[in-house]
């Protein structure tokens, strides 16, 4: 280790995890420091400096901390270590490997290395001596589970370098030198498979960030059919407690058509993370035949873990996602819940005695959220490959009221809005995404429209718009029926209402716990919506309104059974025939 003159300081004040330190040298904003207490060192971050007093937020409990305690400043910001071995790991918000901590209870000041130092990786060189490289250029490839993990020139490097040597194919650990590059002044720089990056800074080792043009398939119908999220897009799911946010996020984590899933459990329940720990290693991803945990990294800073590290956890997740994006991979980042992150900001802002904004949140909340969402996106890499980070966050609005600062700030930046409705949840209409209030801006993108026209059908986007209209008209009809009574409205109102119920029950509602219904491929979604719309377009003969309800209930029931059957199986076709039979009973003959 080089001898560096670290700035040190002495604690002069403590209020909860906000500690003031009198320093003897230069310190920088957001610099990491360690507070020496008893036998251990507590990690902290500088959040404000006045004269020679640094205000630091300690990532752990400050119990027992005394005035005069020594603090050492590390000359770097909060960083993560990037390299092969991140997948399948369970990290805390500061990227400590939780599995390496042997004790049942978390120990204050215990930090564990996030990667495996001993493991040998099968390496294939990519770059050749003489190649000109820049930050993010691919030097070599290692197999991480089944994923091609690219070893890159560290993102912190500026300017161009020339490759002097890349080691031959073989097995290496993350600490071995695997390449040497030369800077313009002729200095040789040896490289390992590891690099570090400060989490609050976006990784920009890409050529450009074009408009998203494809959609990320999730197998969840209300997403893919009604409100698709673009690959490289952003979306958020606000909803009161009990409206099914977590079930929905878990379903997407299991099914999404992405190479890598990063799940950030930010200030949520520990038992929900335990569920992922328990289930993911057992679930097989049908597209690869490998278990789900092989493509998943979990960052968990549950609600009882230190609050300051909660804020770090979402950035840690984003940085890891950007790292894999730079390898040309399709990454989905999920964060549950961004409200807890905002609350962590609020607690600290409050201790710093900053003037509060709305609901006591810091005034810059909105810009913090928009900067964070801006890090997602589809990117073209300098070598012609492309990668993406799609970000989906949940928001837990206080009292279920969507007019609160976190929801409103997020709404300004996220392009998809999945409003979970208490009313739909109460009626057990899951997923409880409200089909009227929700939206996906991506359906207005020409690139996405072109993609859907080719991938699904030329009429797809207009069909989606039409089905939303049917739902809206159904809702209006229902209101009239409720006011005027069943027999106080024309028969047509009942028909309109039940057509919208048909779309609701058959397309929008989906049983996340059922193997087949829980995951619907896009092709099948196309078949389903087309079939349902054909019925909505038909005219039916009814004598009285009392016949409408049981008739449509029969259709819905047959559709539900169909949804539970394997696509195009014998059973499936049986229900298709059954539905067609039911339709014939009352379809208006056009030849009379």
């Amino acid at each position, binding site marked *: 280790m080089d001898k560096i003159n670290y700035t040190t300081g002495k604690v002069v004040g403590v209020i909860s995890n906000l500690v003031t330190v009198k320093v003897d040298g230069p310190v920088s904003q957001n610099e990491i420091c360690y507070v020496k207490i008893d036998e251990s060192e507590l990690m902290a971050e500088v959040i404000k400096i006045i004269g020679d007093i640094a205000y630091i937020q300690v990532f752990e409990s400050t119990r*027992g901390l005394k005035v005069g305690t020594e603090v050492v400043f590390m000359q770097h910001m909060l960083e993560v270590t990037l390299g092969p071995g991140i997948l399948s790991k369970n990290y805390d918000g500061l990227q400590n490997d939780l599995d390496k901590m042997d004790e049942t*209870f978390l120990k204050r000041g215990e930090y564990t290395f996030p990667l495996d130092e001993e493991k040998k990786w099968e390496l294939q060189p990519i770059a050749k001596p003489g190649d000109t490289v820049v930050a993010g250029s691919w030097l070599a490839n290692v197999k991480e589970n089944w994923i091609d993990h690219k070893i890159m020139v560290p993102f912190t490097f500026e300017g161009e370098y020339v490759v002097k040597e890349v080691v031959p194919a073989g097995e290496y650990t993350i600490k071995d030198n695997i390449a040497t590059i030369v800077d313009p002044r002729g200095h040789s720089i040896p490289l390992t498979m590891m690099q570090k990056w400060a989490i609050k800074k976006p990784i920009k080792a890409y050529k450009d960030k074009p408009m998203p043009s494809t959609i990320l398939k999730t197998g969840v119908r209300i997403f893919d059919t009604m409100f698709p999220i673009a690959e490289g897009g952003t979306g958020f799911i606000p909803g009161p407690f009990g409206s099914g946010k977590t079930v929905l996020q878990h379903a997407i984590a299991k099914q999404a058509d992405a190479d890598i899933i990063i799940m950030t459990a930010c200030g949520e*329940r520990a038992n929900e993370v335990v569920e992922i720990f328990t289930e993911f290693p057992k679930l097989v991803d049908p597209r690869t035949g490998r278990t789900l945990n092989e493509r998943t990294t979990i960052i968990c800073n549950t609600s009882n873990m230190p*609050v300051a590290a909660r804020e770090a956890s979402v950035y840690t997740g984003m940085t890891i996602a950007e790292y894999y994006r730079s390898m040309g991979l399709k990454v989905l980042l999920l964060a549950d819940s961004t409200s807890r992150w905002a609350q962590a900001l609020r*607690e600290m802002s409050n201790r710093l005695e900053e003037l509060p904004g709305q609901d006591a949140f810091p005034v810059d909340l909105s810009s913090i959220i928009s900067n964070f969402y801006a890090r997602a996106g589809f990117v073209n890499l300098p070598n012609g490959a492309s990668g993406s980070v799609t970000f989906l966050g949940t928001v837990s609005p206080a009292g*279920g009221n969507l007019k609160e600062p976190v929801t409103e700030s997020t709404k300004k930046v996220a392009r998809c809005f999945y409003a979970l409705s208490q009313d739909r949840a*109460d009626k057990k209409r899951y997923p409880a995404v409200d089909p009227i209030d929700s939206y996906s801006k991506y359906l207005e993108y020409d690139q996405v429209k072109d993609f859907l026209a080719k991938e699904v059908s030329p009429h797809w986007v207009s069909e989606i718009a039409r089905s939303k209209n049917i739902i809206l008209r159904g809702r209006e009809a229902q209101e009239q029926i409720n006011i005027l009574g069943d027999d106080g409205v024309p028969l047509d109102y009942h028909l309109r209402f039940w057509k919208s119920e048909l779309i609701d029950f058959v397309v929008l509602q989906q049983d996340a716990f059922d193997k087949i219904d829980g995951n619907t491929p896009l092709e099948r979604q196309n078949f389903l919506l087309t079939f349902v719309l054909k019925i909505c377009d038909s005219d039916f003969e009814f004598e009285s309104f009392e016949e409408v309800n049981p008739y449509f209930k029969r259709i819905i029931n047959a559709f539900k059974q169909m949804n539970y059957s394997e696509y195009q199986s014998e059973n499936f076709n049986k229900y298709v025939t059954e539905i067609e039979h039911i339709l014939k009973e009352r379809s208006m003959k056009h030849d009379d």
Partner: protein
Amino acid sequence: MTTKAFQRIYTKITQITKATCTLRATGVGYDEMAVVAGRKAQVVKIQGEEVTLQVFAGTEGIPTDAEVVFLGKPPTVKVGDALSGRFFDAYGDPIDGGPAVEGDEREIGGPSVNPVRRQQPSKLIATGIAGIDLNNTIVTGQKIPFFADPDQPYNEVMATVALRAEADKIILGGMGLTHDDYLYYRNTFDNAGALDRIISFVNTTENPPVERLLIPDMALTTAEYFAYEHNQKVLVLLTDMTLYSDALSIVSNRMDQIPSKDSMPGSLYSDLAKIYEKAVQFPEGGSITIIAVTTLSGGDITHAIPDNTGYITEGQLFLRRDSDIGKVIVDPFRSLSRLKQLVIGKQTREDHPQVMNTAVRLYADAANAKTKLENGFDLSDYDERAIAFALDYSEKLLAIDVNIGTTKMLDTAWELFAKHFNKSEVAIKQEFIDKYWKD
């Protein structure tokens, strides 16, 4: 309590507010306990040599020359078998007239369990109450509150649940209990002959409100001792968490913090999560299950306290007085146990999930029929049968005075289905109809 050889006594307080006092002192640790004029206090702020202490009992009558002694340690609780059957105050001192207990001294509010060292909860806790066992099954390691209006008999229901649950230890954390409620718990446990497995930490309305902030940590640190070190199934009862939160807001207000929604401190979510997340299933078999009470004002669940609680806990139970049968029931619509999926139909009979959902659906049909009736519409034959079913369902299953096993609950539900409906109206999977339908 052992005092250090040269314990320094300070006698110059520089500032006194309603809840805190400040003095110049050195070598003091954050969170450390102190005694100010005989009253317990805790360090809440250190600024250079200025140390601010929160005096739990309030500062009324404290003079600027009061004696202040720092104890050199954070708040602790003594744990051991001797605690069984005893009642303590917020500091762990006996209030039942018995002697002080001997035991290992533990810091309260210790570290969290590493999430990867937890086990997925998987053992059902039977209470005999169908509104819970049938519709909202509770699992060991779960945390779930009753959301109740102050006039509802939540303390009675909690005591019943505690006595029926097969727990090795029951730890009661009483916050702002009225003296009568305290005596009620004491007598109920005593009469049931269950005192030997019950430990209570109680702050009554006669005690200073800020003291109650210590109660959950006292109860949960004790629970961790039995669950982790002795692999016991521990049930922790916390009543009333609304009064606990009120104490939090008093403190934050006196510390000049900016209040957020409903004048609660901005850290309310984290403060409550720190308590509820102590619920855990350990791989070695021990567990901590938390059943709490959050009283509502006028049934408003959007208030900051129930709202934050709902985001933390794994479901919530609502009590409701059913005027049709004149009894208190566990409301099947609004109540929810998030962890029930882990056990129903697995540890209970296979038909449990379907029977549960069907009964609630039919009960909802009855509610719709009642609305129809109120609006002056005619009832169909089905509507009338649904209403008759609802009456039976409330009386024989939902009422909290029912005490039967889960299998009996399922059989009862099947009897009610057959009594009021035909097979197609019930619409349960055919294989279960074939097996369990009661002709």
